[in-house]
């Protein structure tokens, strides 16, 4: 079994090393890659292979390499058993089930470019990650570890925030989930996990109490006026004000003017030549 599964995984590691990026780790074995370009699917292939032999690769926790590399990256022994801690470029392998290839090279499954491709063409189902409350399908540096997974078909918006997090929005929930792609240490990941938990709880509450359509962009057509209609609106508005004044001002004061050099109130009204000029155009 090792020989068969080992060979492609080694190739995956080599590919990933050339790609020189580590972005997303696979936590569970529910990642099905279809039509996926690049060499990012080897880890899942490994998982698929293992599943045919064992129930779950996680059951290999504690397996020690004797003649070959171990495939397991169990959570029991985080930093030592089976070289599980060498799974990624940095960080531990606690949540790296299925991600580690045979060698100690990084074994990302998705990288930035690939994510973009997936999200731009979700209908092609490059990745199908089920929404599984029993366990997350994808764990990005351990952030998504609260039973929430993104189905690509359910990705409404995907964007990067300025901190380098990938923001995926589930259309069904109307919630955007931040995915931290690159973690630095366990403490950071733990903090991220806590933050994510809080965020998720808030999101669930919002999803439950929000009215239908909440979180969705409503594209109501804007009422735009044409040039003449817009002009007419302004024209009528200033006309309304002047007419209101002419009607309101006491007739006894129509010849009132603050200083002798100024026009009277009535002259101002009668010298508002704007209408007459325009009419003659």
């Amino acid at each position, binding site marked *: 079994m090792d020989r068969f599964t080992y060979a492609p995984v080694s190739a995956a590691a080599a590919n990933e090393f050339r790609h020189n990026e580590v972005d997303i780790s696979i936590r569970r074995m529910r990642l099905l890659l279809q039509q996926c370009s690049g060499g990012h699917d080897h880890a899942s292939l490994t998982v698929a292979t293992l599943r045919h032999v064992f129930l779950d690769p996680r059951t290999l926790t504690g397996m020690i390499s004797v003649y070959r590399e171990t495939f397991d990256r169990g959570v029991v022994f985080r930093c030592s058993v089976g070289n599980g801690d060498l799974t990624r470029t940095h960080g531990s392998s606690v949540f790296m089930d299925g991600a580690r290839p045979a060698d100690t090279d990084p074994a990302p499954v998705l990288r930035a470019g690939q994510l973009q491709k997936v999200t731009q063409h979700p209908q092609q189902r490059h990745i199908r990650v089920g929404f599984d409350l029993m366990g997350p399908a994808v764990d990005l540096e351990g952030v998504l570890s609260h039973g929430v997974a993104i189905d690509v078909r359910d990705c409404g918006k995907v964007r990067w925030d300025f901190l380098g997090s990938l923001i995926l929005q589930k259309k069904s929930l109307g919630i955007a989930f931040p995915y931290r792609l690159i973690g630095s240490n366990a403490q950071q990941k733990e903090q991220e996990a806590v933050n994510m938990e809080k965020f998720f709880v808030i999101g669930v509450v919002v999803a439950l109490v929000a009215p239908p359509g909440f979180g969705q962009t409503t594209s109501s057509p804007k009422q735009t006026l044409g040039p003449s*209609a817009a002009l007419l609106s302004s024209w009528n508005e200033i006309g309304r004000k002047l*007419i209101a*004044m002419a009607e309101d001002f006491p007739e006894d004061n129509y010849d009132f003017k603050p200083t002798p050099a100024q026009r009277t109130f009535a002259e101002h009204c009668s010298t508002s030549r704007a209408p007459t000029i325009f009419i003659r155009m």
Partner: protein
Amino acid sequence: MDDESREHYKTKAAVVAYVKKSFADGAAAIKEKGDKGMLEMVVEPEGGRTVPLQDLAYGLIEHSGAHYGQLVVYYRVAGLVPPDPRPHK
């Protein structure tokens, strides 16, 4: 110029009717010109520049606004409150 002499509009009713008719005629002209007419090039009566008709029209609206502002001052100086700022019942 086109200034209408006070002698032609001796009463308040005459002044009010003049102002109303002026803006009503202007509104009718705008509708008649339509969107296409707004882009017609016209020569400013006073400035002499050739501008799109809508530019001239907005200039005239601004001019009317200047008159409106002065009349607001007249109201205040006379101890009155202009119609617009009054609290609406």
